């Protein structure tokens, strides 16, 4: 750890200026010192054991294909025996991505949940500015029991931070130890990998979806030009031009980074890094395919098929009414979610195709989790076990009683089942969504597909299978690089700023190549080396981009 070394050098230099506490902090965090790579190799990930008794209508698989429930399951299984909270109250810092819930004292759903877990879930729910909130609480030294740590969201220097303030959970969940917690054992190894830092496990991962972004199309619009699916990048651009009506309708939503990501897949840009034959890494933006995609993106932008206002907040409405014909969704599941804005609409999912003849298109799988939730530092085993019990309870997947209590509430009070669908009742509309979102972002089981309309689920399931044939995983998932953690966000933000300018024609491809050089100099090279050093052997070499 370069950072640690530098810090210690400074201590010797400034000599007496080093305060006693500083030395303590330094030694406590140097425990695993430089050993990130070695430790990673020897770590046994928690043993995977699927939950028994779940009855999905369509089966998922280990690649990430979701379990599908066409209707609400008739019987729910119970995965825990006792109420998890024994100390009365557990505090946590989390964030909600829905409108904030009714406060606890006036929220019957919350109160019933407290009862079910045997104590009070005292949540500090941020709505925004999570990095600031996280940092101030961290600095105060007065941490809540649980604190959600999102990946790469302005919470840098994560390794030393975890070692200084949080509890190492490796001994509690590594290998078969996790079997005490059936819902945690049912989290896949690829999810667990994202909770490993410096070769230790710091919390239960929070699965989102293993799938990555997809382009969604409004079928009624694309019908006019023979459908959304295209055979080449050129054809796609022609179709975009055809559906665009000046001042009235635009082919593509204006969020350029996502659009570029989609174009990149068609050109075969690797999923963040390419693993070379010699086990070194090349960053996506260092490849020729990336430059090709960039040139293409420039052309698409110049054609005027993007919605012209780049910070457009009403994309969902415009997609629903057909004035924006395509938008990028976080995953295939988004196809049915557009029904919220237009009940008549099920979006088309675009499967990546060869941009030019002979090119192997890829489909980038996502990070897979929204981070993990570490525990406040403590030596008290009973406390750690209690928190693990709680996280286990909250991580129960769809189809369990715990999941229903956490996400929908109590049947008859908060929701009822009508025609195989869950319908919120009473004040649930105000009480549930904000709290559900806050809880799901800090603890979750592996996801499933479940929609009010069964045929939607079948469509998504079928498309997921198509996408999986092209899938490429990020080779660095679950790997940790000091430089990346310290500088990665900053230098890639700068590079992406240049890329966006190039797309809009404000800068040239040459400028971009110069920016890549800068990225390499400012730490990029080091990031590649540090990741390559800890790259596990089971990560495959990236296949050639020609078919």
């Amino acid at each position, binding site marked *: 750890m370069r950072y640690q070394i530098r810090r210690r050098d400074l201590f010797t230099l400034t000599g007496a200026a080093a305060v006693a506490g500083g030395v303590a902090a330094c030694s406590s965090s140097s425990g695993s010192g430089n050993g990130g790579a070695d430790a990673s190799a020897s770590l046994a990930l928690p043993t995977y054991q699927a939950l028994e008794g779940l009855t999905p209508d369509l089966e998922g698989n280990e690649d990430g294909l979701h379990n599908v429930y066409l209707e609400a399951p008739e019987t729910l299984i119970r995965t825990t025996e006792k109420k998890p909270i024994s100390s009365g109250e557990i505090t946590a810092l989390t964030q909600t991505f829905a409108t904030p819930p009714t406060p606890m004292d006036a929220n019957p759903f919350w109160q019933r949940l407290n009862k079910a877990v045997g104590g009070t879930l005292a949540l500090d729910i941020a709505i925004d500015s999570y990095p600031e909130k996280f940092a101030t*609480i961290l600095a105060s030294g007065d941490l809540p029991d649980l604190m959600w740590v999102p990946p790469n969201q302005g919470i840098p220097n994560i390794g030393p931070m975890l070692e200084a303030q949080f509890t190492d959970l490796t001994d509690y969940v590594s290998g078969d130890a996790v079997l005490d917690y059936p819902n945690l054992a049912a989290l896949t190894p690829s999810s667990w990998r994202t909770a490993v830092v410096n070769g230790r496990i710091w919390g239960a991962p929070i699965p989102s979806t293993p799938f990555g972004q997809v382009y969604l199309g409004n079928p009624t619009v694309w019908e006019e030009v023979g459908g959304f699916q295209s055979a080449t990048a050129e054809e796609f651009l022609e179709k975009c031009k055809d559906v665009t009506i000046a001042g009235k309708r635009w082919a593509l939503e204006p969020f350029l980074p996502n659009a570029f990501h989609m174009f990149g897949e068609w050109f075969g840009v690797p999923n963040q890094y390419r693993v070379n034959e010699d086990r070194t890494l090349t960053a996506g933006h260092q490849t020729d395919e990336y430059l090709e995609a960039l040139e293409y993106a420039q052309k698409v932008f110049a054609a005027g098929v993007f919605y012209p206002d780049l910070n457009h907040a009403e994309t969902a409405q415009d997609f629903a009414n057909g004035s924006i014909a395509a938008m990028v969704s976080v995953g295939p599941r988004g196809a049915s979610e557009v029904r919220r804005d237009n009940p008549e609409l099920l979006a088309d999912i675009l499967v990546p195709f060869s941009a030019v003849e002979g090119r192997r298109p890829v489909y980038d799988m996502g990070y897979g989790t929204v981070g993990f939730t570490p525990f406040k530092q403590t030596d008290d085993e009973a406390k750690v076990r209690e928190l693990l019990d709680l996280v286990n309870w909250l991580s129960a997947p769809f189809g369990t009683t715990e999941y229903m209590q956490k996400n929908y509430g109590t049947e008859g009070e908060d929701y009822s089942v009508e025609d195989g669908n869950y319908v919120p009742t009473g004040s649930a509309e105000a009480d549930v969504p904000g709290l559900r979102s806050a809880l799901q972002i800090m603890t979750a089981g592996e996801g499933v597909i479940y929609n009010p309309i069964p045929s939607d689920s079948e469509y998504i399931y079928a498309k997921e299978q198509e996408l999986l044939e092209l899938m490429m995983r990020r080779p660095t998932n679950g790997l940790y690089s000091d430089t990346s953690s310290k500088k990665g966000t900053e230098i890639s933000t700068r590079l992406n700023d240049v890329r966006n300018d190039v797309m809009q024609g404000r800068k040239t491809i040459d400028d971009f190549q110069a920016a890549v050089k800068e990225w390499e100099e400012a730490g990029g090279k080091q990031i590649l080396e540090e990741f390559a050093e800890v790259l596990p052997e089971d990560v495959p070499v990236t296949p050639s981009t020609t078919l």
Partner: protein
Amino acid sequence: MTARPDTLPEETSTAPPTSRDARSPERRKGRGGVHRRIWGFVFGESTRPAWMEKPSYPLAAAKTFVIIAISISILVPMLVVVSTSLASGEQIREAGGYVLFPTDPTLEAYTTIFASPLVFRSLGVSVFVTVVGTLLALFVTICMAYALSRPVLGGKFMLMAIILTLFFSPGLIPMFLMIKQLGLLNSIWSLILPGVFAGFNFIVMRSFFMGIPSELTEAARIDGASDFRILRTIVLPLSKAVIAVIGLFYAVGFWNSFFNAMLYINDQSLWPVQMILRSYVIQGTSLTADQLGVQQSPPPQSIKMAVVVVALIPIVLVYPFLQKYFSKGVITGAIKG
């Protein structure tokens, strides 16, 4: 104390009309009965002092044009906000997010947000913070401004110390630690106390205090009045306009702030309305969620706009009550009498 110029009876016409006045056709027409009465009914009696000439046509036309243009440029977007809050989801979808006139207006958005006690409570919190905060802040600022408007020991030092606050900021983390040390975390006072003294407001207030003719305060001093008494009986009554302005600045500052609540309050029942507003308005635009791959479910646009309206109304209602303090001549009109 004499009559204030703005209450002079209209058109008593004791002032000598200037030559330009005499030429003005507007003036002659204006004297007509019916026209004037209607005009007066719509806009209230004009307060044009007797000595002032009627504006020339081009000037009046230009002014009217500017006023109307500015008003439209503000009222149309405001109308869009209100209309969208009243529009149906279908209409909003067809219009792509914002509508100018709701085709079939509905109060659904408002009933939805008031169905949760969250919005009601937050309004209560905001009103409390704003009222108590403003009163406290005015007290602190007036005391300091008055003290430093007089030659006082260490005054210059204090003044410099205050000026520095304009350009440096303590930073998030040290402020958080201070609030925590004072035991104010998760207390409504954490929304009030850090805001009770603003350097800018102090400087403005002090500069107005210094504009008060010194012969008034000196006379009182010679009569043996204490500093506090002078403040109460002379300075404050003469400073209604600036107190109204600074009070408004503080009130709006307290009303609009949400960042302190974001950092210091973790119990939602102590959230001010701006937190609720923010949480509604930023939904669906959060890049964080996008990067994380979290599917967001933003509230319907009508609800967002309804929250905007709800957070806007109370503070907007305050203004007309303060306006009377900005009427001309309140201060010196009274002094010189």
